[in-house]
């Protein structure tokens, strides 16, 4: 059962603020890349300065923390506040955080000092904060969560993969999990990815290229419902890889698996929240579903949120949950939407019961999750 959602990204901090801004984005550009001198600026949906995590969570705990940890700590705090998780559950609550780039800025700053000053110049704070699991460790520590604390490192889908791994913890006896994805902007890493052609591709939904995105989206799921609000359930998840097969085959296998695990036919899906970053990627999702007899309404949020890797795939959960909770098709903020997507540039009131969250990585990984209105 989904009992708490937290999100921190340039579009909005907090579930309602994010949702309101997603439905009606501000007219001014969200991009504010922080780029060192001499480096080509890449389009970015990022905070203009370091994210003010201390407004949302323990100030001392995040004072020296890396940006990705600050984002995760704030989103985690918001999710836990919303869930009002009893103290008795915290000793058994697990954390699963997905990230593709980790605390890349500190990692690179550590190396810069190392190169300039030698081994004696190694900086302890930069080192400890650059360890990949520093963010999940901060989250566990701040909130006193003593279940397993995992950081999953991966590609664009790893925020959803974390969601799937968190659901496994519930199935195996954990009473609650805090799961999601977080990603920070780091000019050098993003410049490298641009160089590799991994981002900055034309989205094909309009004239704008895919921007880099940063943010964190975390959620609390519990094995048993509390309270009287009609909850949302994470009914099934699936993860596959291409191996020596094709990405298309891996995608179809994931879709079949998630529907089979939920005990539904694909045609029963009402909404696809696709973490595809290009027209081709979203098309692939829509076509694969069509091949299975499904034609759900579609939302492709990266047109607005940018390529946020783990955050981008975790954000599909926020949009799926809000769509089900408000019975609203979230818009896809792009021109010339293909009719086959059944997407809309404006919010639409529609009956929705089941939302499929779907993400793929550039290296052949697929993560899928099914969110459903309980009862």
């Amino acid at each position, binding site marked *: 059962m989904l009992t708490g959602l937290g999100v921190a990204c340039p579009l909005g901090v907090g579930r309602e603020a994010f949702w309101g801004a997603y439905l009606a984005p501000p007219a001014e550009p969200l991009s504010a890349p922080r780029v060192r001198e*001499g480096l080509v600026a890449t389009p970015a949906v990022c905070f203009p300065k370091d994210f003010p995590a201390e407004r949302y969570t323990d100030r001392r705990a995040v004072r020296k923390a890396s940006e990705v940890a600050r984002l995760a700590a704030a989103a985690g705090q918001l999710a836990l506040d919303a869930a009002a998780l009893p103290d008795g559950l915290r000793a058994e609550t697990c*954390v699963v955080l997905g990230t*593709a780039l*980790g605390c890349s800025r500190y*990692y*690179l700053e550590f*190396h*810069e000092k*190392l*190169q300039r000053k*030698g*081994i*004696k110049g*190694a*900086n302890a704070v930069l*080192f*400890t904060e*650059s*360890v*990949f*699991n*520093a963010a*999940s*460790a901060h989250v*566990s*520590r701040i909130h*006193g*969560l003593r*279940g*397993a*604390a*995992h*950081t*999953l*490192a*991966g*590609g664009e889908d790893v925020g959803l*993969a974390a969601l*799937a*791994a968190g659901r*496994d913890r519930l199935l*195996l006896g954990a009473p609650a999990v805090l799961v999601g994805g977080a990603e920070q902007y780091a000019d050098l*890493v993003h410049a*490298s*990815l*641009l*160089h*590799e052609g*991994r981002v900055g591709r034309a989205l094909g939904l309009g004239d704008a290229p895919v921007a880099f995105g940063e943010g964190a989206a975390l959620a609390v799921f519990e094995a048993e419902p509390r309270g009287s609000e009609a909850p949302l359930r994470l009914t099934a998840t*699936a*993860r*596959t*890889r291409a*191996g*020596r*097969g094709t990405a298309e085959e891996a995608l179809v*296998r994931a879709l079949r698996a998630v529907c089979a695990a939920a005990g539904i036919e694909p045609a029963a899906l009402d909404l696809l929240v696709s973490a595809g970053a290009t027209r081709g990627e979203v098309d692939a999702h829509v076509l694969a579903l069509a091949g299975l007899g499904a034609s759900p309404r579609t939302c492709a949020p990266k047109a607005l949120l940018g390529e946020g890797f783990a955050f981008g795939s975790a954000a599909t959960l926020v949009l799926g949950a809000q769509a089900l909770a408000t019975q609203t098709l979230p818009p896809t903020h792009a021109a010339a939407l293909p009719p086959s997507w059944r997407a809309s540039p404006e919010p639409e009131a529609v009956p929705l019961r089941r939302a499929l969250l779907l993400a793929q990585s550039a*290296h*052949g*990984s697929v993560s899928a999750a099914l969110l459903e209105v309980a009862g």
Partner: protein
Amino acid sequence: MVTGIGLVTGLARGVNSTWERLFRSERAFCELAHYPLEPDAEVREGAWAGDAETAPRERAHALLVAACEEALGQAGLSVAPDPARSALVLGSSLAAQASAPAFWSSLLAGGPGAAELGALKSYDVEARLADLSQRFDLRGEAALVSNACAAGASALGLAADALRLGRADLALVAGFDALDLHTFAGFQSIQALTGGDVLPFSQGRAGMKLGDGFAALVLERGEVARAAGRAPLARLVGYGESADAHHLTQPHPEGLGAELAMRRALELAGLEPAAIDAVNVHATATPANDLAEYRALLAVFGERVSSLPLVALKPALGHTLGGAGAVEAVISLALLLHQALVPSATLGELDPEIGHALDRVPAARPAALRHVMSNAFGFGGCNASLIFAVP
């Protein structure tokens, strides 16, 4: 059940070669002559495996592949027998991101215009998953868990979960980290390394040395392995994890998280503490960590802590970081296979703050072993305990 194991460490390539050298109490350390060590640097050694001239990223990946091939080969496999039902789970702290120095050299020498941005692609940690998945045709779920020095053990737990939940019949699990300048300098900065001997639970212990570590295990559902005629080496019967929720670099002083992990592993295994015949201890030989682990062992095993054999591998192999949980799991499993205990390669007088005599296995010896526990505790307060049983 475990049907294959593979290992590359600073001591040797291969499980058997490593075992033989551990049994003889050999140590893997050598001077890291290719690092920019200051002439007066006290810490100069690490446990290095392979060719220092090879590019770091390629070196690490080659050693990882070698460990995986050994494990699959022992199981009689070269690729997954049923790809869609075969998972891949990796555990690593750094995922062998070792190209940042090359990038910075180019940036500092020629400015942003000359920077080798392509060198930073090692940030793309998923490429490692992709390569192994393609190489061994593993098409089921895949994950790279990165929770510092517990990562290798956590990877085994995640893989076992996939089997328990019925989503996979086989999982290739690997834990690894390459010794590199990043960790060497970083652990120096937090004063966790020693230039002297690694002395677990000893008075005056001053820390660890770092080492290369690449370990792989093939886990299979028992009925599937038996039907295919693959023999079990051992069974992974329990694992438990926890977070200290205390401090980023210091363990909980009473070992609360470590105790929780061990208790959770015992609970899943359905075993009482008395059923554990030996513990492969995490034992980094830092003052705080060893004391916390002792207190956790005391809380779980009570007065039996005095007679329980505690196997410490870091004096011989170094701390293999994200690889440690898997590297030491493989050796724990080898203890069962050989019905013997390997010694701690170096020991000092027992720390007087430890209120009990401990069996730190000063010399190799035969032992009747049915269940061995293996601990891996990490930065950020991540704790994982595994329990292996004879088949």
